[in-house]
């Protein structure tokens, strides 16, 4: 099997992003982050209905138009940043945490245990993420928490594989052997010497992974597996707007464009960091 050859798409792409692109991405991420922390800076109440102005197209007053209840779509997108970014970031925290733990265990354990763990990472990371997450949701039920854990679990293998590969290199390094010679205990060895040295590529992968997590979250909540209406989560908004597509394209396509811009910005930022700090090739 060539499972080991398959890497996350983002890590495979090798296109150099021009400077203005990086700046634009950074700016967009800054705005998105601000919206998540302080949405009222940009927009009013996302739930305020206005029956007199239903399904109106984009205008100076409503940049993204209004939806079927007369709610300001732009305001909902701004407030939705909190939901969608929270889901993405929480999922990545789970994936990175569990990935580091499992990767360390695999990298430090004996041949058979390592082989079993690595093979399962390989097999799992080749699976469609959507299906893995759906399997988890089928067991745990729908809802925001379940969605977060499902995405986190689906992304664990990506990080576990990288940490395992790094651990494998680090545990043979001279400074580890020296620490053993100086009588360092197993726990101290792992925490003081191995762990800090395997974490190098993780921050960059986490940025790229955040894009994947947000993409996955939008897809799953589009299927109705995440936060329920009237919550202004991006995927849920797009799904709601799908029903009015024949008369009001803006209710689903404009929130979708914001999701896309977020993911592109994260990918661009991730690739920039990758080049900047680690040279081109990872994993």
């Amino acid at each position, binding site marked *: 099997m060539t499972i080991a050859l398959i890497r996350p798409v983002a890590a495979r792409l090798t296109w150099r992003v021009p400077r203005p692109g990086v700046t634009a991405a950074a700016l967009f991420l800054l705005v998105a982050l601000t919206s998540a922390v302080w949405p009222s800076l940009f927009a009013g109440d996302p739930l305020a209905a206005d029956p007199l102005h239903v399904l109106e197209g984009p205008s100076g007053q409503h940049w993204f138009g209004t939806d079927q209840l007369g709610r300001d779509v732009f305001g909902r997108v701004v407030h939705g940043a909190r939901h969608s970014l929270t889901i993405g970031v929480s999922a990545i925290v789970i994936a990175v945490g569990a990935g580091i733990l499992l990767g360390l265990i695999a990298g430090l354990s004996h041949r058979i245990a390592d082989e079993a763990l690595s093979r399962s990472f390989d097999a799992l990371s080749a699976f469609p993420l959507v299906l893995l997450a759906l399997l988890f949701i089928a067991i745990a039920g729908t809802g925001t928490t379940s969605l977060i854990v499902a995405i986190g679990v689906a992304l664990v293998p990506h990080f576990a594989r990288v940490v395992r590969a790094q651990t494998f290199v680090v545990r043979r390094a001279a400074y580890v052997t020296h620490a053993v010679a100086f009588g360092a205990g197993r726990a101290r060895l792992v925490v003081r010497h191995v762990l800090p040295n395997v974490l190098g590529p993780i921050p960059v992968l986490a940025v790229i992974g955040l894009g994947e997590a947000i993409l996955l979250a939008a897809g799953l909540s589009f299927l109705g597996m995440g936060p329920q209406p009237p919550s202004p989560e991006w995927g849920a908004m797009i799904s709601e707007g799908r029903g009015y597509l024949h008369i009001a394209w803006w209710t689903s396509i404009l929130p979708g464009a914001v999701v896309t811009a977020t993911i*592109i910005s994260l990918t661009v930022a991730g690739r920039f960091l990758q080049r900047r700090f680690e040279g081109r090739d990872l994993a």
Partner: protein
Amino acid sequence: MTRAILRRVGAGVLVLWAAATAAYLALLAAPGDTVDAIIGDGADSPLIRSQIIQEWHLDRPAVVQYVDFLARAVQGDLGRSYLLQRPVAEVIGGQLGPTLQLAATAAGFGIVLALVLAVVARRPWVRRLSSTTELVLVSTPPFLIGIVLLSLFSFRLGWFPVSGAQGAAALVLPAITMGLPIAGTLAQVLRDGLDRALDEPFAVTARARGLRESAVLVRHALKHALLPTVTMLGWSFGVLIGGTVIIEQVFGRPGLGQVTVQAVNASDLPVVLAVVILAAAVFVVVNTLTDLAYLVIDPRLRRS
């Protein structure tokens, strides 16, 4: 070479077994009582409960149930749907057609478009343009591409049906939607491979023989660039399976995706697990085929 093939098939069987076992463990780990899940909203009495326990062999030890599950899975019997009270194989089998049709069309479209993008569009400014387009395509949620196409070509222009799977016209937009991201990924890998191959000594030799650049590209470089592309193609089948779940929802098409979403919403685990096992099977078959394709493309690999 036979040994190499056998080893690969063996590894594939192992992955399938692991997937089936993981699926079974998931079934065990599911909260709530299996009997409750089977009864659902139906009639409930101690007699019915004991009948269900009898019928599903729930009174046997977990290990026996596991072996039983594996034995039945090998024979293609994946259990019964809690929700529909029909054999899972029947539920899935009936919906496989439209999904396979969609996936195959999308893959075909994606491959052709990738070839065009990578091989034909080689002038610097065209490259920059298509690289940017590819980044956008890869980063856009597939369902958004679907919604944009639907809004433009079905609702605005009325060229294609709004939903359903009747006829070839209904296949066009979903296939484009799923083919575009695949084309984006494949084109990047293919272009990378071509660039590398064109720097190789054999490309210089071919040029020195007086071959036109296009002939060097198609006759010499393309074969080298195909190897990583075939790997990516194997990967994209997984993406296609995952993609159908969402795209079928966007376009209101019947198929495996609809069944999956319905099953997930109703916690109809046997159906969800069967879909996962099916995806694992597709993954194994595609990867084994990919490995065999390597042997066809690269004669050097046949020797070891």
